[in-house]
């Protein structure tokens, strides 16, 4: 690692002040620390977010679950008030990763194989930052790209709790990330289907499946659909055609498991 200082502010305002320029936010560090070790980042200073009490914890009001940006995966897993989301959190990485990694870090990083972006997009979540609120549809802009400005902090993610939802992850066994993951949410405004792990564009919605499932929320509604392999990820774990196949299979499983 290159040399850097660490600052541990205790309020969002102090953290926002400290960020910008060559300074970078540090949350659970489960992605950033390996990146620093590989010398792929060289911040002058890391601004740790995990001592900020107002960014931690989970609260629910009016059918909306609000999760502080520095809340770790294990705490979301233990919460249970949005079952599909807690189940998703319970299967991220391993227990030690879940005790450090945070929802803010996960959505800010927008890894194309990460789990939370699929939940946020399918649930129609709102990403709350220190300066504004961004709809998930406008937040995830492509592989490792988001609408965040330099120095902007994800302070919370707000999830409207759907009528029914489920996440199905086909695990890449070495990394435990999603080879393909599909989150299906049946909301009062209709069905939303978000796919992670599959596309060179990162997390995205499968609108053809949404239309079919709006007509009939059953696995058979997907029968006539095919997924194009265009622009899907090709790597040693799977071809684009394999991932295209998995998208449909995992969507079907999520529909039949949704509760």
């Amino acid at each position, binding site marked *: *690692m*290159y*040399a*850097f*200082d*660490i600052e*541990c502010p205790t309020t969002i305002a102090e953290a926002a002040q400290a960020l910008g320029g060559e300074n970078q936010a*540090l949350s659970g*560090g*489960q992605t950033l*620390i*390996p990146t*620093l*070790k590989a010398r792929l980042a060289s911040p002058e*200073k*890391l601004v*740790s977010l*995990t001592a900020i009490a107002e960014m931690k914890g989970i609260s629910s009001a009016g059918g909306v679950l609000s999760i502080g940006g520095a809340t770790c995966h*294990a705490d979301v897993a233990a919460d249970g008030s949005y079952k599909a989301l807690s189940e998703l959190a319970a299967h991220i*990485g*391993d*227990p*030690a*990763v879940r*005790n*450090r990694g945070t929802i803010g870090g996960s959505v800010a990083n927008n890894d194309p194989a990460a789990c939370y972006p699929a939940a946020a997009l399918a649930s129609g979540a709102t990403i709350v930052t220190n300066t504004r609120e961004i709809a998930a549809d406008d937040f995830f802009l492509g592989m490792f790209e988001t609408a965040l400005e330099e120095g902007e902090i994800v302070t919370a993610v707000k999830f409207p709790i759907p009528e029914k939802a489920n996440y199905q992850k086909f695990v890449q066994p070495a990394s*435990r990330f999603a080879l393909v993951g599909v989150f299906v949410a049946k909301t009062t405004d209709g069905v939303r289907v978000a796919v992670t792990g599959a596309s060179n564009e990162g997390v995205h919605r499968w609108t053809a499946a949404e239309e079919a499932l709006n007509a009939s929320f059953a696995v058979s509604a997907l029968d006539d659909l095919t997924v194009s392999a265009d622009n899907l990820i090709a790597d040693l774990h799977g071809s684009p055609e394999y991932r295209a196949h998995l998208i449909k299979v995992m969507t079907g499983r999520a529909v039949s498991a949704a509760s």
Partner: protein
Amino acid sequence: MTKVTMTINGKSVAGDVEGNTLLASFLRDDLHLTGTHIGCDTSQCGACVVHVDGRAVKSCTMFATEANGAEVATIEGQAAADGTLNVIQQAFQDHHGLQCGFCTPGMVMSTAALLKDNPKPTVTEVRTYLEGNICRCTGYHNIVKAIMAASGQDVSAIAAE
């Protein structure tokens, strides 16, 4: 350099660390608590698992500064002061849950965290919980057996598998 203080295995310790000093390096290089092993240094193998404020974490993927003020538990604090092994360590010995022993400190610390939350896990729960702890020697079978024994469960069926 930043000054950090933390409680490690019940004892208060202080030290000066650089921003990029990992908790694992602070334990091993500064405090000579070399029971915490660094296997992969990339948060994959779990050899470096310690507890911070009661939770299992990979000490190769956390900075020492972030543990400032925390309660840290490492493998060195698991046996009694006279060297008597705790239940988990004894079960690993009795059931040959280790061969070279490199992964063992992390295995024992992960097991301690598991049994705190789930005192009587099933075999599947044990295997799932240990997803982040890699062992290159044992093939895991005897590790699982040791953990079932440490949780006071019958292991005769596992022995017969």
